[in-house]
């Protein structure tokens, strides 16, 4: 019962948060220097023409009216037209979102699959070469720029060893893209049993995912280790040990109770990766939302930038909502 009420409260809070976020984005756009109509009219427009465009854009209205109109448009999913692609921003985003989700999705999955076992292992075995190596790696990876690591990986695996494709996007030029179902190439290729497309897109995914996992996995690793350490030292595990339960069972008890912080950090990881993906996508010419954001900044495509920023905040809120809900699943005591 309280669970349902909690979810209802969280869901009700979402639109409020979104409204505040949109307010920030709205005022951000008004930070831009110069006359916004300039982008539409060019430098040689007459005064009348400028006035006309101002009216069309609603810029002659008072600011609160402008905000209300902006909100009305956003609710309808209308983020305006991109100056660069001459398409509605929403259409651009819909085309690019699957590419980013595919990248982040694999990065999250592999970070958890590698980071959690390593974290648990280093919490249990406090000595030894693996522990030392993991410690050094964690310290180093946190200091390395992801875009630089991506370039080094390209040099080694593409130029030097010739094992993997270069940074030319998500799939080989010679391979036709799989039929669009989810928009994620590997998933669509599997669903349509298109093996050529699957192997091509998987090989293109390898380096960007490797980069993201290498740089961001320590976040999961360190948190899994400290959560596990806390639990191993907690009273119920000490009791289990005193009662003579087998080692494996003690560890299982500890891990089960270490899950909530691990889930939280997985959410934080997804949030981080959305930002990190911007740079890695740029390096690999990935054609996802991150690259779209960069291109819109470089080309002063404000409508596109505004849309991406707002959607990235929506993404963040949804991720943290899912994290909060996942708590209930792993910890029945939260009721």
């Amino acid at each position, binding site marked *: 019962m309280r669970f349902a009420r909690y979810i209802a409260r969280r869901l009700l809070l979402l639109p409020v948060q979104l409204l505040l976020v949109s307010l920030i984005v709205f005022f951000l756009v008004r930070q831009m220097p110069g006359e916004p109509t300039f982008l539409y009219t060019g430098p040689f427009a007459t005064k009348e023409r400028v006035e006309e465009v101002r009216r069309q854009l609603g810029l002659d209205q008072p600011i609160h009216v402008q905000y209300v109109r902006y909100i009305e448009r956003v609710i309808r999913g209308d983020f305006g037209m991109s100056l660069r692609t001459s398409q509605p921003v929403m259409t651009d985003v819909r085309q690019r979102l699957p590419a980013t989700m595919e990248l982040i999705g694999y990065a999250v999955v592999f970070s958890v699959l590698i980071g959690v076992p390593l974290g648990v292992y280093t919490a249990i075995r406090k000595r030894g070469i693996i522990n030392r190596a993991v410690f050094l790696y964690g310290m180093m990876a946190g200091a390395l720029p992801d*875009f630089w690591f991506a370039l080094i990986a390209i040099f080694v695996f593409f130029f030097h060893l010739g094992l993997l494709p270069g940074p030319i996007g998500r799939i080989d030029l010679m391979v036709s893209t799989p039929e669009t179902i989810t928009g994620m190439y590997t998933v669509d290729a599997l669903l349509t049993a298109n093996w050529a497309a699957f192997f091509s897109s998987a090989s293109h995914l390898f380096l960007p995912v490797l980069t993201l996992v290498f740089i961001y996995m320590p976040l999961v690793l360190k948190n899994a280790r400290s959560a596990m350490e806390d639990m191993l030292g907690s009273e119920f595990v000490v009791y289990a040990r005193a009662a003579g339960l087998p080692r494996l069972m003690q560890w299982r008890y500890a891990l089960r109770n270490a899950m909530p912080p691990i889930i939280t950090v997985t959410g934080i990881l997804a949030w981080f990766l959305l930002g990190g993906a911007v740079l890695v996508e740029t390096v690999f010419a990935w054609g996802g939302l991150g690259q779209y954001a960069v291109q819109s900044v470089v080309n002063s495509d404000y409508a596109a930038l505004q849309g991406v920023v707002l959607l990235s905040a929506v993404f963040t809120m949804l991720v943290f909502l899912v994290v909060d809900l996942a708590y209930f699943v792993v910890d029945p005591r939260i009721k």
Partner: protein
Amino acid sequence: MSEAVQVPSPASGGIAAAAPIPRAGGLHTFARFVGQRPAFLTGLAIVGITVFLAAVGPYIGPYPTETALPGDTLQPPSWRHPFGTDVSNMDIFSRVIAAPRIDLTIALVSTFIAFVFGVLLGVISGFFGGERGLARYASEGIMRAADIVQAFPVFIFALALVGFRGPGAINVIAALAFLNIPFFLRITRGAVLQVRERPFIEAARCAGNSEWRIAFFHVLPNALTPPVANISPTIGFSILLTSGLSFVGAGVPVPTPEWGSMIAIGAPNMMTGQWWTALFPGIALGISILGYALVGDGLKEFLDPTKRV
């Protein structure tokens, strides 16, 4: 490096109250503490080198840092050019050691601004949280605003802030400062919530001090340890963000020597085998960030007496 030494010095009496550092010979204690920790010492050395290079780096390199040399395109590392040359004939070594000037300045200034605003807002929101009236609304409002700012993925928000204002060092500083305020705010608030329950605050109140005076003259100095310990890692993080912004062309404009933009210049060459173009600026960047993180870890340990033996 000087500020790293001053931090735990007994002159700032507030820290001494939170962490009982002996009044006499604070510097001596610090030196001995550093001597026992090679990682901390390494970090301090790296920080020292970056500060030194920020001061004189642009003048000590063997070649000019913003002008092309005739005829030395994409030379591999040699005695003439220790780190090689890039596609526009510039000497990479000279540019790598000149880059801390801009990178460190941006990071230091933005972190300082974020620290000042974050600590002030943190004291207000922590000290007046749960009170009645206007102060309570101020406290709540500050926290909700911080929530909203932190709802955006960090790099995308930085990109947007710079994107809407245009590239350039000043706008990068403004963006980074703005982004880091909630971070210092939360850390300070956490410390304030603990300090305000301590008996000497009660005593200050009994002595007839006004609430504002208690907040800023009694609570604030004693809640400074956590935010101060986080200055150094924040500087490292800001360097990383600055280089990322410059890498995509939204930070410091070329040809100013800056590690991120140098990596961007070298990026196309990495695919054709000229590894030195992006390798060296990246190593310099990684080592610097590592150094600031190590100093942060060391200071945290030094300022937290429970972790010291």
